Structures are given as structure tokens and as C-alpha cells.
């Protein structure tokens, strides 16, 4: 049942891939479940962190939510609409309401486009009728919001540091005023003090713009900082989910305990 407050509702989402394969593979088409039946609700304004180690399926899950990858089974509703079944114009309209911030600040920006074009591209696609001047104004305003000077628009990605590139990625994600932002390890590739700046920026923007975050991370301390709720993922499934403080301070599942205990310098050490 869709409630007014849930921005996203996911039920039984699955995705599997053929394992090995190719002409020389033995054993026929064994399948590997990257996401093996995941369900959750995401309320407006909250930050749900999905935490897990490499290979657990968290990135695949994030991409399915954004329809970058198609799920094999399950349901997804976004603001009451059927997200999984949407196509054509309907999907286009839904797409602009959800955006992604990527992990690698060096790979996620087109090196051959100026920053102004990169951040303006979503507008060029979804609001094609917008005059060039107005588009540039909005880009400049968004760049200012994320802490960059307007003259950044004329420059190229390689001229910026990792932290600045992440800000550019955030500007690009927010230029269409989405409701949902999926952030996939947004600070993992950054130094401590730079990562802290970006996390703080994300928190400020969340309250300013009323954003809802789906935050993917492998780092429990980062998650402790930013999440209202946490889901712990392993081998394609959620093994534990609940309020962030509770899951991290009083984990119930053995795997969550193992993760918490393994944090160096953390409680377990």
C-alpha cells in the first residue's frame, strides 16, 4: 500500500547474471544472484544507507532503483507510481525526479566537456525549451550552492581536485531538483577532510532542498554520520535493517556484528 510519505517502495527485487558462460565454459548456465529478493520503503526526507562489502549487490540494487539496470523480478513504486513498469514518456518524467552521485570523481565527469556543459546537460535534455542564458544562470547558481565559483563553468574536469569534482557531480545531480538522490560511495575516494566537507554539503542540501537519500557505502563510520536508517546487505539480501543508531550500536545479526567489530579504531578494536 503506497502511503503519502513513502517516496520509494521496493518489494522482492531480484537480479541475477549468468555465471561464467561463453563457448568454453563448463557446467551449463549456472546463475549468480546479485540481488536476491530485496524489499524496503524509503520515506520522504530520510537517508537510508545500504551498507555491505564488495560484491554484496548494493550497487546493482542502486542501479535497479534508477532503472539503469532492469530487474528480473519484483516491484518498485516511486511516489505512488509504478516505477518498474514505466516506459517512454512516463519513465522520462520519473527519471528526472531521481538522480545519482557516483563514487569516482575522476571517472564520472566527461573529460572533454566543460563543467558548464556537464552540469547543464540534464537541463538541455529535460528542459530543452529553456533559453541558453537562463540555463547558464541556473548552472551558475547550482555551482555556487555547492561551493564553486561561476568561472568553473568554462573549465574542464582535470583542472579540479577530487573533492571539487564530487561537488560538480552533486551539482549535476541536483540541477533538475530531483526528489530522490542515490549516492554511491560519494566520499570513498576522497581524503578525510575533503570527504567531511562533501558529507556536510550533502546534509545541508538535504535540509535545504527536501531531498531523500539512498546512500550506498562500505564505511560504517560514514554511515553513522549521515544515515537515519541502515540496511546491511550480504550476498544479495538484507540481513538487518533498522534505525542507524540501533543497528550500529546494538547489532543483532552476526554479520553486522562482524562488520562493526572489524572497524579499526571503532568499538570493536
Amino acid at each position, binding site marked *: 500500500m503506497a502511503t503519502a510519505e513513502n517516496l520509494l517502495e521496493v518489494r522482492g527485487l531480484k537480479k541475477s547474471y549468468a555465471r561464467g558462460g561463453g563457448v568454453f565454459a563448463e557446467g551449463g548456465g549456472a546463475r549468480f544472484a546479485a540481488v536476491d529478493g530485496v524489499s524496503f520503503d524509503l520515506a520522504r526526507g530520510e537517508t537510508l544507507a545500504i551498507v555491505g562489502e564488495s560484491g554484496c549487490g548494493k550497487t546493482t540494487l542502486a542501479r535497479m532503483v534508477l532503472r539503469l539496470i532492469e530487474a528480473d523480478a519484483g516491484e518498485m513504486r516511486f511516489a505512488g507510481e509504478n516505477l518498474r513498469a514505466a516506459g517512454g514518456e512516463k519513465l522520462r518524467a520519473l527519471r528526472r525526479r531521481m538522480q545519482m552521485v557516483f563514487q569516482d570523481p575522476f571517472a564520472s565527469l566527461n573529460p572533454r566537456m566543460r563543467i558548464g556543459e556537464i552540469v547543464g546537460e540534464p537541463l538541455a535534455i529535460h528542459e530543452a525549451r529553456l533559453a541558453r542564458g537562463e540555463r547558464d544562470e541556473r548552472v551558475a547558481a547550482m555551482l555556487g550552492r555547492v561551493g564553486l565559483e561561476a568561472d568553473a563553468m568554462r573549465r574542464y574536469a582535470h583542472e579540479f581536485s577530487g*573533492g571539487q569534482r564530487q561537488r560538480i557531480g552533486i551539482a549535476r545531480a541536483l540541477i533538475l531538483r530531483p526528489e530522490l538522490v542515490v549516492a554511491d560511495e560519494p566520499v570513498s575516494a576522497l*581524503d578525510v*577532510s575533503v*570527504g567531511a566537507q562533501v558529507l556536510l554539503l550533502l546534509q545541508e542540501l538535504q535540509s535545504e532542498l527536501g531531498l531523500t537519500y539512498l546512500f550506498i557505502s562500505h*564505511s560504517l*563510520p560514514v554511515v553513522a554520520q549521515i544515515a537515519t536508517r541502515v540496511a546491511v546487505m550480504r550476498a544479495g539480501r538484507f540481513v538487518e535493517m533498522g534505525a542507524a543508531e540501533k543497528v550500529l550500536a546494538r547489532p543483532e545479526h552476526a554479520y553486522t556484528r562482524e562488520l562493526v567489530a572489524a572497524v579499526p*579504531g571503532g568499538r570493536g578494536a
Partner: protein
Amino acid sequence: MELATAAGVVRPVDGVSLRIAAGETVGLVGESGSGKTMLALALMGLLPDGARVGGEAWLGAEGAAGGASSAPTEGGKKNLVGLGERELRAVRGREVAMIFQEPMTSLNPVMRAGEQIAEGIRAHEPGLQRAEVRGRVIAALERAAVPEAAERARQYPHQLSGGLRQRVMIAMALACGPRLLIADEPTTALDVTVQRQILDLLDELRRGLGLGMLFITHDLGVVARVAERVAVLYAGRIVEEGPAREVLERPRHPYTQGLLAASPRMERGKLEPIPGTVPRLTALPPGCAFEPRCSQRRAECAAGMPELRVVGGEHAARCVLV
């Protein structure tokens, strides 16, 4: 050390002094641009062409010699800085070994794991028979707690998990029994549970083999876990050093304090980033390198770089406030 770049001569490492005792782990904390990797490469003689290194790096008996000496060897000690390439090659791998952050890019993708370890052994001990080399390879892998060592030796890096690749790197580094291990962010790219295993392994090996270890990382949690002593690097200089617990619980340099305040913890707290960014080495401020970003700065800070001042015991910080 000096490095000639298109923008002028820079000093990625400027007057760094470290002491590492056998069986001790010294942590070197720094962010990008701090000079930490350059320091490690300088010790191994792996710097880019055009880099000039000054100073001394004494490997061997207790501490550095009392007076500055330009002799390459003294008693059982060697000054790594003075060595020529041929002598360095004898030292590298055999007396000083290094492990890197990304095992997938540090290992040769087209050589089997065992063969890569064997390569190092044969380079330093050319007289060994094939069977002996094989035995040493298996022993090295077992020492790095690699299960089914003989099977793993025959695999290629892409067939191994991140944790196993790092163990192969460790096996390779330790194969010739070095006295000093330089570990440059060895667990940063690994999952947290795997990281724990690798850190435990390095600990055991250090104790069992009496290995000295220079552990370079930007992660304060990791450094708290592994190091007895810590040095914090900023813009090529050590700005604070001392016993790990001291430095991390009662930091005296504003940069160290800033790093701690900016590090996320398991308890949700107020994250305070350090304003500004690390300065480019080509555009260092005139006085203390941290001064422009420092919330506690005074007029004298812009005048000149302070010396390392003693806080107490072995704890020192490069700040006028001390």
C-alpha cells in the same frame, strides 16, 4: 628531496626525520599531497628521474649515526640515500620491502602468483635450485596465511580476491627476509573484514620476524590500530609525532586536531571539516604551511615555519602554540 616540475622545483618531502626500531610499527599519516608516498619511494630509491634526494636514511643497527656522515656504509649500517642503483637493487626486496595499495595493479597480471614471488627470490639468491625456490615460495605464501598455498601459487592475480592478492604481495615482500617493510595504504582498497585479517597478519609477522614497519595511511582508525608511534605529514613536513595514543588522543597540532574532528566515527557526532584545501607544493604559504587554514593562527605564524617543539616525552609538534 627535490623534484623538478614544469612549475618549478618542489619539495614533496622537506626535512623528514624518522626512526623505526626492529619490531616496531611507525604510522605515517597524511592526505593526498602530503608527500607520504614520495617519502616511501625515496626510501626505496624508486623516485622518478629528475628527483634529487638529500639527507640520510640509515638502515641497520640502532638509530642513525651521531654525526652526519656521507659514507654509504658504517659498521653494519647502510645509508640508503647514498647508494648507487646496483647497491639499491640489492637492498630493495631483500632488506627493505614495500607493499602497495592496489594489489591488482601492483601484481603482474600475466604472471602466476608463485612465479612473481620466485622472481624476487631468484633476483637476490641466484644460486638456489628450482626445488629450493619453490619451497621458499610455498613457505612465503604460508607465512602470509594463504590457504592451499600450492594451488594459489599457480593462479593468476585476477583469479584471486582482493585479500588474497594482498597476501601474495605480503608473501612477495617478505620472501627474502627484509628488516624493514614499507606498507603504503595496504588495506585502503580492501573490505573492512578483510582489512582486519590483513592487519592482524601484519601484526603477527612483525612480532614473529622482528620486522620494522613504516605504515602509511590516511585513515586515523587504522593507524590507531597498528602503530606504536605516529608521524603526521603535511605539505612534505612532519607536523606532529609521538606515541600513537598520545598523538591521537591529545593532539597538539591544529592540523592533527582538524583531521580528528573531520573523521567520521561510529558514534554520530558533529563532523567538522578543515576549511580550505591542501596547498600545492608550488604555492606554499610563506610561513607555516597550515597557517591559512588554521583556526588558531597568530601573527607570527605567517612569518616562518616553526621547529618541531617538544610537548612532553617523545611527543612533539611543529607549532608556535606548543
